[in-house]
C-alpha cells in the first residue's frame, strides 16, 4: 500500500484572550490508499482541529499552525495559499460534517448544491452536472433521485440529509474523505445505514477515509487502523485488532473499560478518574499522568516517546519502556475485552 498522506509533527494553537490554547501538539500519522483511519478521542482532544487543519479550514487569525508538515502526494499543504487550497478542497480532499442540517444551504435546491463543485472543479456544463448529480443521489441510496434533486434540505430527513452531504463530498471523486463525526447526530438504525453506505462507496471508489469519532463501537465497525488522541497527541496507534484486543496505553484501557458490554452484569464500570486537562496550560510530562492510576515518577517529568509494540502498533506510555515495572491492564478491562471476543463469535447468528 502506498502512502497518500503523511502528517509530520503537526502542532496547532489558538490565540484566545486567556492565552495560547495548544489544541494539537506534535501529531504524526500516515494515511494509505484505500484505507480507513479512525481518530478517536474525547471532546477537546484535538481530533477535529487536526482534520480541519488538513482541509485548510482553521479559523483565521485565531488558529495558527506552529510547526509540522502535511504531505499530500509529496506536496506540503501547510505552505499552500488559500487560493491553491481551494483547488484541492472538494476535489482532492473533501469533508463530511457532523450536523447535516447546518452543512447544507437551506435556501438552495439539493441539486444546485451538488452541481456547484462539479462545475467549478470538473468544468462540466449545467446539464451534464445535473445528470451527474442525479447519479450521485442514486449512488448514495436516495430513492427517486430525479424528483429529489429539485427539493430543498428541509424536505429531507436527517439520515437522507447526511446522504446528500456525502453525495456532495464524493462529487469530484476525492482521494481523501474526511468524516468528522458523520453519524453522531443520527439514530442508531440510521447510523448503521450510513456506515454501510460509506463502506460500500469505499469498496467501489477506493477513497481513503479519515473517520473522526468518539464512539468506539463505530470505530470497530468502519476502521482499518485507529489513532487514539488525548490532550492534543496521539497516544496509541495501530490496526483495529491491535488497539481493541491488545491495547497498551492506560487511556485506551480506560476507554474500552468504560463501555458496557451487552452481556454486562452488575459489575461496576471501569472509569478514568478526573477530567481532561486544560490545554491553556498542558501539564508537564505525560498529560494523562494525573488521571493514570499506573503513572510512574518519570511521567511527571518527561513526555513518553512513541514505543513500538509491533510493526503496525505504537503507543506513547512509559509503561512500555524496558526499565518500567511490568504492569498489565486492569483485570476488569481484560475481562471486558474477553467478553467482546465472546460476543464476536455470536455476531454471525
Amino acid at each position: 500500500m502506498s502512502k497518500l498522506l503523511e502528517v509530520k509533527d503537526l502542532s496547532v494553537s489558538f490565540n484566545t484572550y486567556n492565552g495560547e490554547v495548544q489544541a494539537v501538539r506534535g501529531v504524526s500519522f500516515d494515511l494509505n490508499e484505500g484505507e480507513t483511519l479512525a481518530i478517536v478521542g474525547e471532546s477537546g482532544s484535538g481530533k477535529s482541529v487536526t482534520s480541519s487543519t488538513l482541509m485548510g479550514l482553521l479559523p483565521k487569525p485565531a488558529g495558527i499552525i506552529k510547526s509540522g508538515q502535511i504531505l499530500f502526494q509529496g506536496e506540503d499543504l501547510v505552505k499552500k495559499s488559500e487560493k491553491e487550497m481551494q483547488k484541492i478542497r472538494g476535489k482532492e480532499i473533501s469533508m463530511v460534517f457532523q450536523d447535516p442540517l447546518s452543512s447544507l444551504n437551506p435556501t438552495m435546491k439539493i441539486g444546485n448544491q451538488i452541481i456547484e463543485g462539479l462545475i467549478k472543479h470538473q468544468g462540466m456544463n449545467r446539464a451534464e452536472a445535473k445528470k451527474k448529480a442525479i447519479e450521485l443521489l442514486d449512488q448514495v441510496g436516495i430513492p427517486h433521485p430525479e424528483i429529489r434533486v429539485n427539493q430543498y434540505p428541509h424536505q429531507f430527513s436527517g439520515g437522507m440529509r447526511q446522504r446528500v452531504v456525502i453525495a456532495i463530498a464524493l462529487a469530484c471523486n476525492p482521494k481523501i474523505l474526511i468524516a468528522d463525526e458523520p453519524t453522531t447526530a443520527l439514530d442508531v438504525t440510521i447510523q448503521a445505514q450510513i456506515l454501510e453506505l460509506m463502506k460500500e462507496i469505499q469498496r467501489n471508489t477506493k477513497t481513503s477515509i479519515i473517520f473522526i469519532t468518539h464512539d468506539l463501537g463505530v470505530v470497530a465497525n468502519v476502521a482499518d487502523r485507529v489513532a487514539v488522541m488525548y490532550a492534543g497527541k496521539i497516544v496509541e496507534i495501530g490496526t483495529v485488532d491491535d488497539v481493541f484486543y491488545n491495547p497498551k496505553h492506560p487511556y485506551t484501557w480506560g476507554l474500552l473499560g468504560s463501555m458496557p458490554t451487552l452481556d454486562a452484569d452488575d459489575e461496576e464500570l471501569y472509569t478514568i478518574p478526573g477530567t481532561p486537562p486544560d490545554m491553556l496550560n498542558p501539564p508537564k510530562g505525560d498529560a494523562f499522568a494525573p488521571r493514570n492510576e499506573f503513572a510512574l515518577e518519570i511521567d511527571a517529568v518527561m513526555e513518553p516517546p512513541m514505543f513500538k509494540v509491533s510493526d503496525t502498533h505504537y503507543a506513547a506510555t512509559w509503561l512500555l519502556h524496558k526499565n518500567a515495572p511490568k504492569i498489565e491492564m486492569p483485570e476488569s478491562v481484560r475481562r471486558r475485552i474477553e467478553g467482546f471476543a465472546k460476543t464476536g463469535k455470536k455476531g454471525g447468528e
Partner: protein
Amino acid sequence: MIVNKTEKILEVKHLKKYFPAGRKKIIKAVDDVSFDIYKGETFGLVGESGSGKSTTGQTIIRLYDATDGEVLFHGENVHAKKSRVEKLKFNRKMQMIFQDPSSSLNPRMTVLDIIAEGLDVHHLAKNEKERKERVEQLLEAVGLNKEHATRFPHEFSGGQRQRIGIARALAVEPELIICDEPISALDVSIQAQVVNLLKKLQKEHGLTYLFIAHDLSMVKYISDRIGVMHLGHMVELADSDELYKNPVHPYTKSLLSAIPLPDPEYERSRKRITYDPSIHDTSEEPKFREIRPHHWVRCTSKEFEQYKKELGE
C-alpha cells in the same frame, strides 16, 4: 438491588399525549402507553428520536398535561385536579435529571442556591446553617467538594454540571427520579463515572429510576427492565436480559442489531436486520400481549401465535 416485584411505585395506564400541528393535524407523540415501575428498580425506556420516550417521561412528571390516560404514583392519580399543597407533596417524591447539563442550570445562581432551591420550596431547612450543611453533604454525595458551593455553573465541566443536576434532584429526598438522557451529552470516560454514581446513589437511598436513553448498551447495563418505544407506542417490554436474548418484535430486533459494539470481530460478522413495518398483520388493531411471563409485545392475535412459535413455546 433486590427488587420487590409486588410494590408498584408508578402505574402508567393508557397514557396519551397529542400535540396540535396546525390545520387540524395532530401528532400522536405518546399513543396509549401502559407500564408499571416497581419500587427500587431501574426501568429503561429506549427508542429513536421521535419515538415519544422523552414526552412520556415529561408527561409522567406533569411537565405536560396528558391528553388521556392515567399516571398513578403510589396509587394516586398525578394528573387529577390538585391543590397547591398536594402538588408540592407530589413534586417532592418525583424529580428529574435532564439531558443538557448546561441549559438545565440557571447561569445566574450559585451552586448553593441551585441545589437548595428544592429545600427552600419545601421548607426542609430550618435555618441558613442547616441549608448550607445539607448542600455540602449533597455535593460530597455526588463526588464534588463543598468549596464548589459558592461557584457558578459555567465554572464546571459537563460531567460536573451533571453531578450538580443530580445533587439538586436528590435534595428533596425523592423516591422516583426520571433521568432523561442524563449521559448522552457527556464524553465516554465521563459517562461511566455518572452511571456508576447513579448506581451507587440508588443503592444508598433506595431510589427508583426511569432511565430514558437511546444508547442501548448503557440502558442494558443500568436497567432491570426495558421498554422499547416506536412512533408513540410501546412495542416490547421485558426484563433486560430477556429482551436482549430473546427479542420478539421486529423493531426491537432491528434496533438491537444496529448497536455498534467496540469489538472489531463482532462488527465484521454482524448482520444487520432492517425493520419493515409492512410485514405486520393489519387484520386487527395490535394489542399489548404477554408472550412469556413478564415479557410483553405489541401484536395482533395472529402475530402472537407466530412469535410464540419463534420463541419455541
